[in-house]
Protein backbone atom coordinates (compact mmCIF):
# COMPACT_ATOMS: atom_id res chain seq x y z
CA UNK A 1 0.00 0.00 0.00
CA UNK A 2 1.63 3.20 -1.14
CA UNK A 3 -0.84 5.87 -0.28
CA UNK A 4 1.60 8.70 -0.47
CA UNK A 5 2.80 7.89 -3.96
CA UNK A 6 -0.70 7.84 -5.44
CA UNK A 7 -0.61 9.60 -8.75
CA UNK A 8 -2.23 13.01 -9.00
CA UNK A 9 -4.12 11.95 -12.11
CA UNK A 10 -7.14 9.88 -11.17
CA UNK A 11 -5.52 6.50 -11.54
CA UNK A 12 -8.19 3.85 -11.01
CA UNK A 13 -5.87 1.27 -9.48
CA UNK A 14 -4.62 3.64 -6.80
CA UNK A 15 -8.19 4.65 -6.04
CA UNK A 16 -9.07 1.01 -5.56
CA UNK A 17 -5.98 0.62 -3.38
CA UNK A 18 -7.04 3.50 -1.13
CA UNK A 19 -10.51 2.04 -0.83
CA UNK A 20 -9.12 -1.41 -0.04
CA UNK A 21 -6.72 0.07 2.52
CA UNK A 22 -9.65 1.88 4.16
CA UNK A 23 -11.59 -1.37 4.50
CA UNK A 24 -8.69 -3.58 5.54
CA UNK A 25 -6.96 -1.23 7.98
CA UNK A 26 -9.64 1.26 9.01
CA UNK A 27 -7.81 2.44 12.11
CA UNK A 28 -4.53 3.05 10.28
CA UNK A 29 -6.44 4.77 7.49
CA UNK A 30 -8.00 7.20 9.95
CA UNK A 31 -4.83 7.75 11.94
CA UNK A 32 -2.97 8.69 8.76
CA UNK A 33 -5.53 11.45 8.33
CA UNK A 34 -5.41 12.53 11.95
CA UNK A 35 -1.64 13.05 11.65
CA UNK A 36 -2.42 15.71 9.04
CA UNK A 37 -5.19 17.19 11.24
CA UNK A 38 -7.84 16.31 8.72
CA UNK A 39 -10.60 13.72 8.41
CA UNK A 40 -11.53 11.50 5.45
CA UNK A 41 -14.49 13.77 4.63
CA UNK A 42 -12.10 16.77 4.51
CA UNK A 43 -13.27 18.27 7.81
CA UNK A 44 -10.89 19.71 10.39
CA UNK A 45 -11.03 17.69 13.65
CA UNK A 46 -13.19 20.14 15.62
CA UNK A 47 -15.76 20.91 12.95
CA UNK A 48 -19.31 19.55 12.83
CA UNK A 49 -20.96 18.59 9.56
CA UNK A 50 -23.40 20.83 7.69
CA UNK A 51 -26.64 21.02 9.62
CA UNK A 52 -30.11 21.82 8.31
CA UNK A 53 -33.47 22.08 9.97
CA UNK A 54 -36.97 22.20 8.47
CA UNK A 55 -40.02 22.78 10.65
CA UNK A 56 -43.49 21.41 9.97
CA UNK A 57 -42.49 18.39 7.88
CA UNK A 58 -45.41 16.22 9.04
CA UNK A 59 -48.88 17.58 8.28
CA UNK A 60 -50.70 15.03 10.46
CA UNK A 61 -48.81 16.05 13.63
CA UNK A 62 -49.25 19.07 15.94
CA UNK A 63 -45.56 19.90 15.75
CA UNK A 64 -42.77 18.43 13.68
CA UNK A 65 -39.24 18.95 12.41
CA UNK A 66 -36.69 17.33 10.13
CA UNK A 67 -33.07 17.68 11.23
CA UNK A 68 -30.03 16.72 9.18
CA UNK A 69 -26.46 16.65 10.42
CA UNK A 70 -24.38 15.54 7.48
CA UNK A 71 -26.17 12.39 6.32
CA UNK A 72 -27.74 11.63 9.70
CA UNK A 73 -31.45 12.45 9.35
CA UNK A 74 -34.08 12.64 12.08
CA UNK A 75 -37.80 13.22 11.74
CA UNK A 76 -39.53 14.26 14.97
CA UNK A 77 -43.27 14.72 15.37
CA UNK A 78 -45.48 15.58 18.33
CA UNK A 79 -49.06 14.42 18.75
CA UNK A 80 -51.07 15.94 21.58
CA UNK A 81 -53.50 13.75 23.47
CA UNK A 82 -55.56 14.19 26.64
CA UNK A 83 -54.77 12.48 29.94
CA UNK A 84 -56.04 12.63 33.49
CA UNK A 85 -53.29 14.15 35.63
CA UNK A 86 -51.94 12.19 38.58
CA UNK A 87 -53.11 13.05 42.08
CA UNK A 88 -49.56 14.05 43.08
CA UNK A 89 -49.39 16.74 40.39
CA UNK A 90 -52.92 17.64 39.35
CA UNK A 91 -51.80 20.75 37.47
CA UNK A 92 -49.16 19.15 35.24
CA UNK A 93 -49.15 17.47 31.86
CA UNK A 94 -46.66 14.92 30.64
CA UNK A 95 -44.20 14.28 27.82
CA UNK A 96 -43.54 10.81 26.42
CA UNK A 97 -40.46 10.54 24.23
CA UNK A 98 -39.70 7.58 22.02
CA UNK A 99 -36.76 7.19 19.67
CA UNK A 100 -37.12 4.73 16.80
CA UNK A 101 -34.57 3.21 14.49
CA UNK A 102 -36.66 1.64 11.70
CA UNK A 103 -34.90 -0.89 9.44
CA UNK A 104 -34.65 1.69 6.63
CA UNK A 105 -32.05 3.74 8.51
CA UNK A 106 -29.06 1.43 8.68
CA UNK A 107 -27.82 -1.96 7.41
CA UNK A 108 -27.40 -3.15 11.01
CA UNK A 109 -31.09 -2.85 11.93
CA UNK A 110 -33.38 -5.68 10.82
CA UNK A 111 -37.14 -5.94 11.27
CA UNK A 112 -38.04 -7.64 14.53
CA UNK A 113 -34.53 -7.12 15.84
CA UNK A 114 -34.46 -3.54 17.15
CA UNK A 115 -31.18 -1.67 17.33
CA UNK A 116 -29.44 -1.66 20.70
CA UNK A 117 -28.82 2.06 20.46
CA UNK A 118 -32.51 3.00 20.21
CA UNK A 119 -33.62 2.56 23.84
CA UNK A 120 -30.37 4.17 25.05
CA UNK A 121 -30.91 7.29 22.97
CA UNK A 122 -34.58 7.29 23.99
CA UNK A 123 -33.67 7.40 27.68
CA UNK A 124 -30.95 9.99 27.16
CA UNK A 125 -33.42 12.25 25.33
CA UNK A 126 -36.08 11.95 28.05
CA UNK A 127 -33.54 12.68 30.76
CA UNK A 128 -32.06 15.64 28.90
CA UNK A 129 -35.39 17.26 28.06
CA UNK A 130 -36.83 16.82 31.55
CA UNK A 131 -33.70 17.89 33.44
CA UNK A 132 -32.97 20.92 31.25
CA UNK A 133 -36.30 22.39 32.36
CA UNK A 134 -36.98 23.46 28.78
CA UNK A 135 -40.69 22.80 29.20
CA UNK A 136 -42.76 23.80 32.19
CA UNK A 137 -45.14 20.85 32.60
CA UNK A 138 -47.67 23.19 34.27
CA UNK A 139 -48.16 24.80 30.86
CA UNK A 140 -49.61 21.48 29.67
CA UNK A 141 -52.45 21.62 32.20
CA UNK A 142 -55.98 22.14 30.86
CA UNK A 143 -58.48 21.64 33.70
CA UNK A 144 -56.90 21.31 37.12
CA UNK A 145 -57.08 17.71 38.32
CA UNK A 146 -59.31 16.70 35.40
CA UNK A 147 -57.43 17.01 32.13
CA UNK A 148 -53.97 17.80 30.88
CA UNK A 149 -51.97 17.37 27.70
CA UNK A 150 -49.86 14.33 27.05
CA UNK A 151 -47.30 15.24 24.40
CA UNK A 152 -46.19 12.17 22.48
CA UNK A 153 -42.88 12.96 20.83
CA UNK A 154 -41.73 10.29 18.39
CA UNK A 155 -38.37 10.62 16.69
CA UNK A 156 -37.56 8.47 13.69
CA UNK A 157 -34.02 8.03 12.48
CA UNK A 158 -34.29 7.97 8.68
CA UNK A 159 -30.57 7.73 7.96
CA UNK A 160 -28.01 6.74 10.59
CA UNK A 161 -24.53 8.15 10.03
CA UNK A 162 -23.22 8.86 13.51
CA UNK A 163 -23.98 11.42 16.24
CA UNK A 164 -27.52 10.07 16.54
CA UNK A 165 -28.21 11.70 19.89
CA UNK A 166 -27.17 15.18 18.69
CA UNK A 167 -29.44 15.03 15.66
CA UNK A 168 -32.31 13.52 17.65
CA UNK A 169 -32.11 16.23 20.31
CA UNK A 170 -31.99 18.96 17.67
CA UNK A 171 -35.07 17.56 15.93
CA UNK A 172 -36.84 17.23 19.30
CA UNK A 173 -36.32 20.84 20.40
CA UNK A 174 -37.21 22.04 16.91
CA UNK A 175 -40.45 20.03 16.97
CA UNK A 176 -41.35 21.67 20.31
CA UNK A 177 -40.62 25.12 18.84
CA UNK A 178 -42.95 24.29 15.98
CA UNK A 179 -45.69 22.83 18.20
CA UNK A 180 -49.05 24.50 17.81
CA UNK A 181 -51.42 23.29 20.53
CA UNK A 182 -54.96 22.72 19.23
CA UNK A 183 -57.75 24.82 20.75
CA UNK A 184 -60.00 22.50 22.73
CA UNK A 185 -63.14 22.72 24.79
CA UNK A 186 -64.82 20.57 27.41
CA UNK A 187 -67.94 18.88 26.02
CA UNK A 188 -71.06 17.82 27.90
CA UNK A 189 -69.71 14.32 28.58
CA UNK A 190 -66.66 15.75 30.35
CA UNK A 191 -64.34 14.91 27.47
CA UNK A 192 -61.95 17.33 25.87
CA UNK A 193 -62.64 17.81 22.16
CA UNK A 194 -61.11 19.98 19.47
CA UNK A 195 -62.91 23.31 19.37
CA UNK A 196 -64.40 24.24 16.05
CA UNK A 197 -66.50 27.25 15.20
CA UNK A 198 -69.12 25.24 13.30
CA UNK A 199 -70.41 22.81 15.90
CA UNK A 200 -68.88 24.13 19.10
CA UNK A 201 -70.45 27.55 18.91
CA UNK A 202 -72.55 26.95 22.01
CA UNK A 203 -71.72 29.20 24.93
CA UNK A 204 -71.20 26.47 27.53
CA UNK A 205 -68.44 24.90 25.39
CA UNK A 206 -66.01 27.78 25.46
CA UNK A 207 -62.44 26.86 24.57
CA UNK A 208 -60.36 26.14 27.67
CA UNK A 209 -56.97 27.10 26.23
CA UNK A 210 -57.53 30.07 23.94
CA UNK A 211 -54.34 31.81 25.09
CA UNK A 212 -51.96 28.89 25.33
CA UNK A 213 -51.30 27.82 21.75
CA UNK A 214 -47.49 27.86 22.03
CA UNK A 215 -45.22 26.49 24.74
CA UNK A 216 -42.75 28.89 26.28
CA UNK A 217 -39.39 27.22 25.84
CA UNK A 218 -36.72 28.32 28.25
CA UNK A 219 -33.16 27.06 28.40
CA UNK A 220 -33.19 24.97 25.23
CA UNK A 221 -30.63 22.14 25.36
CA UNK A 222 -28.16 21.51 22.51
CA UNK A 223 -25.49 18.84 22.33
CA UNK A 224 -22.26 17.84 20.69
CA UNK A 225 -20.75 14.36 20.61
CA UNK A 226 -16.96 14.04 20.32
CA UNK A 227 -14.66 11.06 19.84
CA UNK A 228 -11.60 10.82 22.05
CA UNK A 229 -8.81 8.93 20.34
CA UNK A 230 -5.24 9.12 21.67
CA UNK A 231 -4.71 12.87 21.96
CA UNK A 232 -7.18 13.74 19.26
CA UNK A 233 -10.70 15.09 19.72
CA UNK A 234 -13.03 14.61 16.77
CA UNK A 235 -16.28 16.56 16.86
CA UNK A 236 -19.52 15.18 15.39
CA UNK A 237 -18.33 11.70 14.30
CA UNK A 238 -19.69 9.75 11.34
CA UNK A 239 -20.91 6.16 11.76
CA UNK A 240 -17.60 4.90 10.34
CA UNK A 241 -15.57 6.94 12.84
CA UNK A 242 -17.80 5.79 15.70
CA UNK A 243 -17.29 2.14 14.75
CA UNK A 244 -13.49 2.45 14.65
CA UNK A 245 -12.71 4.76 17.57
CA UNK A 246 -14.96 3.86 20.43
CA UNK A 247 -14.63 6.48 23.15
CA UNK A 248 -17.47 8.98 22.94
CA UNK A 249 -18.19 12.04 25.03
CA UNK A 250 -21.53 13.83 24.69
CA UNK A 251 -21.89 17.26 26.24
CA UNK A 252 -25.29 18.94 26.56
CA UNK A 253 -25.40 22.67 27.27
CA UNK A 254 -28.44 24.89 27.45
CA UNK A 255 -28.86 28.14 25.54
CA UNK A 256 -27.08 30.10 28.30
CA UNK A 257 -24.14 27.64 28.17
CA UNK A 258 -24.94 25.97 31.47
CA UNK A 259 -24.05 22.31 31.65
CA UNK A 260 -27.12 20.05 31.46
CA UNK A 261 -25.37 16.72 31.18
CA UNK A 262 -22.15 15.02 30.23
CA UNK A 263 -22.07 11.40 29.09
CA UNK A 264 -18.92 9.38 28.79
CA UNK A 265 -20.15 5.82 28.58
CA UNK A 266 -16.87 3.98 29.19
CA UNK A 267 -14.63 3.34 26.21
CA UNK A 268 -10.93 2.48 26.07
CA UNK A 269 -9.71 6.09 26.38
CA UNK A 270 -9.68 7.55 29.90
CA UNK A 271 -10.25 11.25 29.54
CA UNK A 272 -8.07 13.83 31.25
CA UNK A 273 -9.95 16.81 32.62
CA UNK A 274 -8.24 18.93 29.97
CA UNK A 275 -9.78 16.77 27.24
CA UNK A 276 -13.20 17.17 28.83
CA UNK A 277 -12.67 20.92 28.96
CA UNK A 278 -11.77 20.90 25.26
CA UNK A 279 -15.00 19.03 24.53
CA UNK A 280 -16.90 21.68 26.53
CA UNK A 281 -15.27 24.46 24.53
CA UNK A 282 -16.16 22.76 21.25
CA UNK A 283 -19.74 22.30 22.45
CA UNK A 284 -20.01 25.97 23.43
CA UNK A 285 -19.01 26.85 19.87
CA UNK A 286 -21.48 24.37 18.47
CA UNK A 287 -24.38 25.61 20.64
CA UNK A 288 -23.98 29.07 19.08
CA UNK A 289 -24.20 27.52 15.59
CA UNK A 290 -27.23 25.41 16.50
CA UNK A 291 -29.05 28.33 18.11
CA UNK A 292 -28.60 30.31 14.92
CA UNK A 293 -29.86 27.40 12.80
CA UNK A 294 -32.92 26.97 15.03
CA UNK A 295 -33.74 30.69 15.03
CA UNK A 296 -33.43 30.83 11.25
CA UNK A 297 -35.73 27.82 10.87
CA UNK A 298 -38.31 29.48 13.13
CA UNK A 299 -38.21 32.81 11.30
CA UNK A 300 -38.36 31.02 7.91
CA UNK A 301 -41.57 29.41 9.06
CA UNK A 302 -43.07 32.68 10.24
CA UNK A 303 -42.44 34.25 6.85
CA UNK A 304 -44.31 31.48 4.99
Amino acid at each position, binding site marked *: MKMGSANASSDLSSEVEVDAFRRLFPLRFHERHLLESIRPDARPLGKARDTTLALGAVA*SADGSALAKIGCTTMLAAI*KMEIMTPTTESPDEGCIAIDFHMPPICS*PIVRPGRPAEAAPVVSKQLSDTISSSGMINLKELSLVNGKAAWMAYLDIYCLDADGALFDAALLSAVAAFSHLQIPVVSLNDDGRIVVFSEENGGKLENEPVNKEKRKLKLSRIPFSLTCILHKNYILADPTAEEESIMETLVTVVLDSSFQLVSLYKPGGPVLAYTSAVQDCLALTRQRVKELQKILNEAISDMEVD
Partner: protein
Amino acid sequence: MAGKSGATPTTYSPSPTTQNKKRPPIFNDVDWVRSDARGFQQCRPAFLRTGAVNAASGSAYAEFGNTKVIVSVFGPRESKKAMMYSDVGRLNCNVSYTTFATPVRGQGSDNKEFSSILHKALEGAIILDSFPKTTVDVFALVLESGGSDLPVVISCASLALADAGIMMYDLVASVSVSCLGKNLVIDPISEEERYQDGSVMISCMPSRNEVTQLTVTGEWSTPKIHEAMELCLDACSKLGKIMRSCLKEATSALQE
Protein backbone atom coordinates in the same frame (compact mmCIF):
# COMPACT_ATOMS: atom_id res chain seq x y z
CA MET B 1 -41.64 9.29 30.63
CA ALA B 2 -40.40 6.37 28.57
CA GLY B 3 -43.55 6.17 26.46
CA LYS B 4 -44.23 2.54 27.35
CA SER B 5 -47.88 1.67 27.67
CA GLY B 6 -47.43 0.28 31.17
CA ALA B 7 -45.84 3.39 32.61
CA THR B 8 -48.02 6.05 31.04
CA PRO B 9 -51.65 6.75 31.84
CA THR B 10 -54.25 6.07 29.17
CA THR B 11 -54.83 8.98 26.86
CA TYR B 12 -57.24 9.87 24.09
CA SER B 13 -57.08 12.13 21.09
CA PRO B 14 -59.23 15.28 21.22
CA SER B 15 -59.89 15.07 17.46
CA PRO B 16 -63.30 13.65 16.59
CA THR B 17 -62.97 10.05 15.39
CA THR B 18 -64.18 9.50 11.87
CA GLN B 19 -64.12 5.71 12.06
CA ASN B 20 -67.79 5.09 12.77
CA LYS B 21 -69.25 7.91 10.75
CA LYS B 22 -71.68 7.10 7.98
CA ARG B 23 -70.71 7.68 4.42
CA PRO B 24 -71.52 11.25 3.46
CA PRO B 25 -74.36 11.19 0.93
CA ILE B 26 -72.27 13.23 -1.47
CA PHE B 27 -70.44 10.09 -2.62
CA ASN B 28 -73.70 8.62 -3.94
CA ASP B 29 -74.23 11.48 -6.36
CA VAL B 30 -73.06 11.20 -9.91
CA ASP B 31 -71.25 14.50 -9.68
CA TRP B 32 -69.20 15.67 -6.74
CA VAL B 33 -65.90 17.41 -6.30
CA ARG B 34 -62.98 15.56 -4.73
CA SER B 35 -61.67 17.27 -1.63
CA ASP B 36 -58.36 18.05 -3.36
CA ALA B 37 -60.24 19.35 -6.43
CA ARG B 38 -58.91 16.62 -8.72
CA GLY B 39 -60.88 15.04 -11.55
CA PHE B 40 -62.05 11.47 -10.96
CA GLN B 41 -59.48 10.12 -13.39
CA GLN B 42 -56.65 12.37 -12.34
CA CYS B 43 -53.76 11.15 -10.15
CA ARG B 44 -52.14 13.28 -7.48
CA PRO B 45 -48.91 15.00 -8.53
CA ALA B 46 -46.03 12.64 -7.82
CA PHE B 47 -42.73 13.69 -6.34
CA LEU B 48 -40.01 11.05 -6.59
CA ARG B 49 -36.35 11.11 -5.60
CA THR B 50 -33.73 8.40 -5.41
CA GLY B 51 -30.84 8.34 -2.95
CA ALA B 52 -32.84 9.42 0.12
CA VAL B 53 -30.92 7.26 2.60
CA ASN B 54 -27.15 7.27 2.43
CA ALA B 55 -26.67 4.21 4.65
CA ALA B 56 -28.60 1.98 2.25
CA SER B 57 -27.43 0.34 -1.00
CA GLY B 58 -30.28 2.13 -2.73
CA SER B 59 -33.27 4.15 -1.64
CA ALA B 60 -36.12 6.32 -2.82
CA TYR B 61 -38.59 8.83 -1.42
CA ALA B 62 -42.07 9.21 -2.84
CA GLU B 63 -44.67 11.84 -2.10
CA PHE B 64 -48.16 11.63 -3.60
CA GLY B 65 -50.21 14.39 -1.99
CA ASN B 66 -50.11 13.65 1.74
CA THR B 67 -48.83 10.11 1.29
CA LYS B 68 -45.10 10.09 2.02
CA VAL B 69 -42.93 6.99 2.02
CA ILE B 70 -39.25 6.09 2.14
CA VAL B 71 -37.92 2.77 0.89
CA SER B 72 -34.40 1.50 1.56
CA VAL B 73 -32.80 -1.47 -0.15
CA PHE B 74 -29.96 -3.40 1.45
CA GLY B 75 -27.87 -6.06 -0.19
CA PRO B 76 -27.52 -8.38 -1.92
CA ARG B 77 -26.15 -9.62 1.39
CA GLU B 78 -25.76 -12.83 3.35
CA SER B 79 -29.02 -14.66 3.96
CA LYS B 80 -30.10 -15.44 7.49
CA LYS B 81 -28.17 -18.32 9.02
CA ALA B 82 -31.25 -20.53 9.33
CA MET B 83 -32.06 -20.23 5.60
CA MET B 84 -31.63 -23.26 3.36
CA TYR B 85 -29.28 -23.15 0.39
CA SER B 86 -30.86 -21.50 -2.61
CA ASP B 87 -29.34 -21.01 -6.04
CA VAL B 88 -31.63 -18.06 -6.71
CA GLY B 89 -31.62 -14.87 -4.68
CA ARG B 90 -34.16 -14.15 -1.98
CA LEU B 91 -36.29 -11.07 -1.59
CA ASN B 92 -37.28 -9.93 1.89
CA CYS B 93 -39.83 -7.13 2.30
CA ASN B 94 -41.08 -5.19 5.28
CA VAL B 95 -43.54 -2.31 5.50
CA SER B 96 -44.05 -0.31 8.67
CA TYR B 97 -45.80 2.89 9.66
CA THR B 98 -44.62 5.74 11.88
CA THR B 99 -46.74 6.38 14.97
CA PHE B 100 -47.76 9.74 13.53
CA ALA B 101 -48.63 8.46 10.03
CA THR B 102 -52.36 8.31 10.72
CA PRO B 103 -54.62 11.04 12.20
CA VAL B 104 -55.01 9.00 15.39
CA ARG B 105 -51.66 8.03 16.92
CA GLY B 106 -50.81 4.43 16.06
CA GLN B 107 -48.46 1.82 17.43
CA GLY B 108 -45.96 2.12 14.60
CA SER B 109 -45.88 -1.64 14.15
CA ASP B 110 -45.09 -3.71 11.07
CA ASN B 111 -47.81 -4.21 8.54
CA LYS B 112 -47.59 -7.95 7.76
CA GLU B 113 -50.23 -7.88 5.06
CA PHE B 114 -48.61 -5.04 3.13
CA SER B 115 -45.19 -6.66 3.53
CA SER B 116 -46.38 -9.81 1.83
CA ILE B 117 -48.23 -7.95 -0.94
CA LEU B 118 -45.12 -5.85 -1.59
CA HIS B 119 -43.07 -9.03 -1.85
CA LYS B 120 -45.46 -10.55 -4.37
CA ALA B 121 -45.65 -7.37 -6.43
CA LEU B 122 -41.87 -7.10 -6.82
CA GLU B 123 -40.86 -10.77 -6.98
CA GLY B 124 -41.80 -11.21 -10.62
CA ALA B 125 -39.88 -8.16 -11.79
CA ILE B 126 -36.53 -8.93 -10.16
CA ILE B 127 -33.99 -11.18 -11.86
CA LEU B 128 -33.43 -13.37 -8.82
CA ASP B 129 -30.85 -15.51 -10.67
CA SER B 130 -28.49 -12.54 -10.62
CA PHE B 131 -27.74 -12.84 -6.88
CA PRO B 132 -27.74 -16.53 -5.91
CA LYS B 133 -27.40 -17.56 -2.25
CA THR B 134 -27.94 -14.00 -1.03
CA THR B 135 -30.85 -11.82 0.08
CA VAL B 136 -32.05 -8.41 -0.97
CA ASP B 137 -33.92 -6.56 1.77
CA VAL B 138 -36.57 -4.01 0.85
CA PHE B 139 -37.73 -1.98 3.83
CA ALA B 140 -40.45 0.65 3.59
CA LEU B 141 -41.49 3.24 6.13
CA VAL B 142 -44.73 5.15 5.63
CA LEU B 143 -44.02 8.59 7.09
CA GLU B 144 -47.51 9.86 6.46
CA SER B 145 -50.54 7.96 5.30
CA GLY B 146 -52.73 9.94 2.94
CA GLY B 147 -54.41 7.15 0.98
CA SER B 148 -53.24 4.68 -1.69
CA ASP B 149 -50.32 3.88 0.60
CA LEU B 150 -49.60 0.44 -0.78
CA PRO B 151 -49.37 1.36 -4.47
CA VAL B 152 -47.06 4.25 -3.55
CA VAL B 153 -44.87 1.89 -1.50
CA ILE B 154 -44.66 -0.58 -4.40
CA SER B 155 -43.71 2.03 -7.00
CA CYS B 156 -41.22 3.63 -4.60
CA ALA B 157 -39.69 0.23 -3.79
CA SER B 158 -39.04 -0.57 -7.43
CA LEU B 159 -37.33 2.79 -7.80
CA ALA B 160 -35.17 2.04 -4.76
CA LEU B 161 -34.25 -1.36 -6.23
CA ALA B 162 -33.17 0.34 -9.44
CA ASP B 163 -31.15 2.83 -7.39
CA ALA B 164 -29.43 -0.08 -5.64
CA GLY B 165 -28.50 -1.56 -9.01
CA ILE B 166 -30.57 -4.72 -8.55
CA MET B 167 -31.29 -6.31 -11.94
CA MET B 168 -34.93 -6.13 -12.97
CA TYR B 169 -36.89 -6.89 -16.10
CA ASP B 170 -38.60 -3.52 -15.76
CA LEU B 171 -39.71 -0.99 -13.16
CA VAL B 172 -42.94 -1.81 -11.33
CA ALA B 173 -45.55 0.93 -11.29
CA SER B 174 -48.63 0.50 -9.14
CA VAL B 175 -51.94 2.38 -9.09
CA SER B 176 -55.29 1.77 -7.41
CA VAL B 177 -58.83 2.75 -8.32
CA SER B 178 -61.75 2.95 -5.90
CA CYS B 179 -65.37 2.48 -6.79
CA LEU B 180 -67.53 5.02 -4.98
CA GLY B 181 -71.20 4.77 -5.85
CA LYS B 182 -71.48 5.30 -9.59
CA ASN B 183 -68.00 6.69 -10.02
CA LEU B 184 -64.51 5.30 -10.36
CA VAL B 185 -61.87 7.44 -8.69
CA ILE B 186 -58.19 6.90 -9.35
CA ASP B 187 -55.41 7.24 -6.75
CA PRO B 188 -57.89 7.65 -3.85
CA ILE B 189 -57.09 9.62 -0.68
CA SER B 190 -57.76 8.13 2.79
CA GLU B 191 -61.27 9.53 3.05
CA GLU B 192 -62.29 8.10 -0.33
CA GLU B 193 -60.77 4.72 0.56
CA ARG B 194 -62.73 4.64 3.81
CA TYR B 195 -66.09 4.88 2.04
CA GLN B 196 -65.28 2.87 -1.09
CA ASP B 197 -67.52 0.06 -2.33
CA GLY B 198 -64.64 -1.72 -3.98
CA SER B 199 -61.09 -1.29 -5.09
CA VAL B 200 -58.73 -2.51 -7.78
CA MET B 201 -54.95 -2.30 -7.49
CA ILE B 202 -52.69 -3.19 -10.37
CA SER B 203 -48.91 -3.42 -10.25
CA CYS B 204 -47.35 -3.79 -13.65
CA MET B 205 -44.21 -3.50 -15.70
CA PRO B 206 -45.22 -0.76 -18.12
CA SER B 207 -42.68 -1.30 -20.90
CA ARG B 208 -43.32 -5.05 -21.05
CA ASN B 209 -47.08 -4.70 -20.62
CA GLU B 210 -47.04 -7.38 -17.94
CA VAL B 211 -49.01 -7.35 -14.72
CA THR B 212 -47.12 -8.55 -11.63
CA GLN B 213 -50.08 -8.24 -9.35
CA LEU B 214 -53.80 -7.61 -9.47
CA THR B 215 -55.93 -7.20 -6.35
CA VAL B 216 -59.69 -6.80 -6.50
CA THR B 217 -61.86 -6.29 -3.42
CA GLY B 218 -65.52 -5.45 -3.01
CA GLU B 219 -68.45 -5.66 -5.35
CA TRP B 220 -67.89 -5.12 -9.06
CA SER B 221 -69.83 -5.55 -12.28
CA THR B 222 -67.96 -6.87 -15.32
CA PRO B 223 -68.06 -3.65 -17.36
CA LYS B 224 -67.00 -1.61 -14.34
CA ILE B 225 -64.03 -3.83 -13.61
CA HIS B 226 -62.89 -3.59 -17.21
CA GLU B 227 -63.11 0.16 -17.03
CA ALA B 228 -61.19 0.24 -13.73
CA MET B 229 -58.43 -1.99 -15.09
CA GLU B 230 -58.06 0.16 -18.18
CA LEU B 231 -57.77 3.23 -15.95
CA CYS B 232 -55.10 1.58 -13.76
CA LEU B 233 -53.02 0.31 -16.66
CA ASP B 234 -53.12 3.68 -18.36
CA ALA B 235 -52.04 5.45 -15.14
CA CYS B 236 -49.30 2.85 -14.55
CA SER B 237 -47.73 3.54 -17.91
CA LYS B 238 -47.75 7.28 -17.18
CA LEU B 239 -46.29 6.72 -13.71
CA GLY B 240 -43.66 4.44 -15.25
CA LYS B 241 -42.51 7.32 -17.44
CA ILE B 242 -42.21 9.64 -14.43
CA MET B 243 -40.21 6.99 -12.56
CA ARG B 244 -37.92 6.49 -15.54
CA SER B 245 -37.25 10.20 -15.86
CA CYS B 246 -36.51 10.37 -12.11
CA LEU B 247 -33.81 7.72 -12.55
CA LYS B 248 -32.40 9.48 -15.60
CA GLU B 249 -32.23 12.78 -13.73
CA ALA B 250 -30.37 11.12 -10.85
CA THR B 251 -27.73 9.61 -13.13
CA SER B 252 -27.23 12.75 -15.19
CA ALA B 253 -26.82 14.76 -11.98
CA LEU B 254 -24.19 12.24 -10.92
CA GLN B 255 -22.22 12.60 -14.13
CA GLU B 256 -21.99 16.37 -13.97
